[in-house]
């Protein structure tokens, strides 16, 4: 087999988002400078995405903005929430155009991987685990034929999951009604993912590709509250009471 010189694949990173509400770049620079002065090494060479949601239809001086950010030791990587004209202008200025952020809460600053943790005396946001999103909460029953996927997050179903329905999460799954369908936790390979349910009657439970069919589930905790986890590469069921 010949060795490839590179590997190209997609990956998710947390980026700082700079939401502009004014076109006055000098004012932005001084305000931003003050913020950075509080936690200098936290922002050192931090990648920044400029959010233009509040400046729709405005002409943005991208070159000037880039230089300003550069002088504050920030790396402008792209823009988001840009309109058609802003997009082409951003591209001309050498900025990437990003789609809207998946979660509205994804605007917390994130230091570069090797950056030192912020000084303890300063109230700075804690560094986050990479890209775990808000928990998805489903309030209606999940009916036969429906499929729910909680990407990069936990999934909570308040109602039941019917036979022939499928609930999938990259994190944990909690089902407060009866779980009759299929539950697949840790879909992207999180070995610590678990499935919790109030009444276990599942067709299939799976964590990280290790699965049990309902036949195997009948023997223990059937129709009872149970927690399913992976221990030493083996599915384990514990009572929840």
């Amino acid at each position, binding site marked *: 087999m010949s060795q490839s010189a590179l590997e190209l694949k997609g990956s998710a990173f947390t980026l700082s988002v700079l939401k502009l509400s004014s076109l006055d770049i000098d004012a932005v620079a001084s305000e931003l400078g003050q913020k950075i002065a509080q936690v200098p090494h936290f922002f050192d060479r931090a990648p920044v995405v400029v959010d233009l949601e509040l400046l729709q239809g405005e002409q943005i001086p991208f070159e000037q903005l880039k230089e300003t950010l550069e002088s504050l030791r920030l790396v402008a990587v792209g823009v988001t929430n840009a309109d058609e004209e802003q997009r082409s202008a951003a591209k001309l200025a050498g900025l990437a155009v990003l789609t809207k952020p998946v979660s509205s809460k994804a605007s917390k600053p994130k230091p570069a991987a090797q950056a030192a943790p912020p000084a303890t005396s300063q109230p700075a946001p804690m560094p986050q685990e990479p890209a775990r999103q808000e928990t998805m909460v489903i309030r*209606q*029953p*999940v*009916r*036969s*034929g*429906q499929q729910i996927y909680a990407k990069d997050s936990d999934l909570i179903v308040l*109602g*039941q999951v*019917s*036979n*022939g*329905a499928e609930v999938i999460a990259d994190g944990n799954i909690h089902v407060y*009604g*009866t779980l*009759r369908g299929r539950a697949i936790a840790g879909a992207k390979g999180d070995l610590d993912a678990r499935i919790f349910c109030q009444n276990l009657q599942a067709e299939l439970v799976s964590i990280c590709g290790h699965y049990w069919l309902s036949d195997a589930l009948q023997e223990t905790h059937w129709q009872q509250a149970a927690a399913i986890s992976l221990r030493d590469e083996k599915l384990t069921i514990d009572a929840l009471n």
Partner: protein
Amino acid sequence: MARIIVVTSGKGGVGKTTTSAAIATGLAIKGNKTVVIDFDVGLRNLDLIMGCERRVVYDFVNVINQEANLNQSLIKDKRVDNLYILPASQTRDKDALTKEGVGKVLEELSETFDYIICDSPAGIEMGAQMALYFADEAVVVTNPEVSSVRDSDRILGILASKSRRAEAGEEPVKEHLLLTRYAPSRVDRGDMLSVEDVQEILAVPLLGVIPESQAVLKASNSGAPVILDEQSDAGLAYQDAVERLLGNEVDYRFLTAQKKGIFKRIFGG
């Protein structure tokens, strides 16, 4: 504004058309101006159950295609005031139904009617989706049997995700469960799912339980909705269901097996 109620099930042969005819007739008897629409284009049945098959001139598809107006195609019931039937086309297929066309017809009917009952075809394809799309409420007809329950669950999922109300983010379609062909004696023997079993699986409020009855077949073949047969338990059970649909509380009947006495044996029941 009319209340638009779809009668649906996913599975075929569980009693959707019988139920549509009975509920529409019941609502009209109670003084509500009611129209029942056959959405089963290509497999027209409602007109037979309602006993108006010889009076069909124009149909639902003609109205959608603006080949006829509503007044020309609505058939007035001969037995009950306030009751109208809009028959399906027998020579077309389900593709004749478009969202815009159906929406326009329902809007026009909404102006003059109190209730619009949509008799859905079986399945979960375009025809069934079109019947439930504009609904405010849904009567999900289910037989006490596992495959029917599974299909009802599927259609409930479609109601919750593909109806106009779901798409517009409005209050969800109000769901009712109607259990038909219920035989208490077979439930006692363990051959049939009980009301409680079905309710536990579907988790939908119960509108009524219609007992298995000879009267239903007789009513279908004679073209008179079974609700008009006040001698039959199925007819009475449908009357109860209509009362509940109108918001009245009625006790459930015919849920337990009755020992047939000598008079019952002679006079039937």
